């Protein structure tokens, strides 16, 4: 599966469009990690646990998007975008979307 956030796949011809594919995941903060993060909030600096958590969650959203594209018979997703929004206190939604296409390999 080719992923790009350009409008085309460089050097390859798009032969078929399948439309929008998307994947999302909503993550809540872990209480223990949140406590440590609370301490970090006094000292400042990077919250490594959160960086990892968000990266993992975003990967999961991407994987769901890829699954959807595979089920459509696509072999590439172009114009991939990410967005983050907080839906409730302490929970965030990570959302990935793009256009599934078939390219000549």
């Amino acid at each position: 599966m080719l992923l790009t956030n350009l409008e085309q796949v460089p050097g390859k011809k798009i032969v078929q469009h399948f439309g929008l594919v998307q994947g999302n995941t909503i993550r809540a903060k872990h209480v223990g990690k949140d406590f440590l993060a609370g301490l970090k909030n006094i000292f400042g600096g990077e919250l490594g646990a959160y960086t990892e958590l968000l990266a993992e969650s975003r990967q999961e959203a991407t994987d769901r998007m890829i699954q959807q594209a595979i089920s459509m018979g696509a072999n590439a997703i172009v114009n991939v975008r990410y967005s983050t929004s907080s839906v409730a206190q302490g929970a965030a939604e990570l959302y990935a979307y793009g256009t599934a296409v078939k390219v000549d390999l």
Partner: protein
Amino acid sequence: MEIIVLLILLATGYFFGQRAEKKHFKSIIEREKAHLHFPVVTMRTPPAIAQHELNAELVAGNAVISIDFFKKFVASLKMLFGGRVTQYESLLDRARREALLRMKEQAALKNAFVVMNARVETASISKNSKRRNSVGAIEVLAYGTAISLGKKIQR
């Protein structure tokens, strides 16, 4: 009693916060120098290179950075008067440069020569459930398409 606790928190926040920020900026500047030759652009059309095929791959980097207690306190005072809040400026600057650097490092690992259509996105992670609009930590995501040279085109 409460004032003493506040003062201790302010002092530790000031001391550790300044030290962490200085260290972080030093490492950012060092790594930025190392990746100076690596272009990140917001253009969307890939370069036309006739001799090679091009490979495209999505790369991303993220960073969650928290503000320290001292800066948060000073910023909340500044909110009364308005004007530039330099405390938050440096926080966002740090997070953004760190995320961009991580994206660049990932792209360099994939032997790319440019990152196209780079996008930077910021989200605030509120830490304090009692005060809704308080900025505790921010997450910055930088992503783009890493372009690398593929095999040579035979003519």
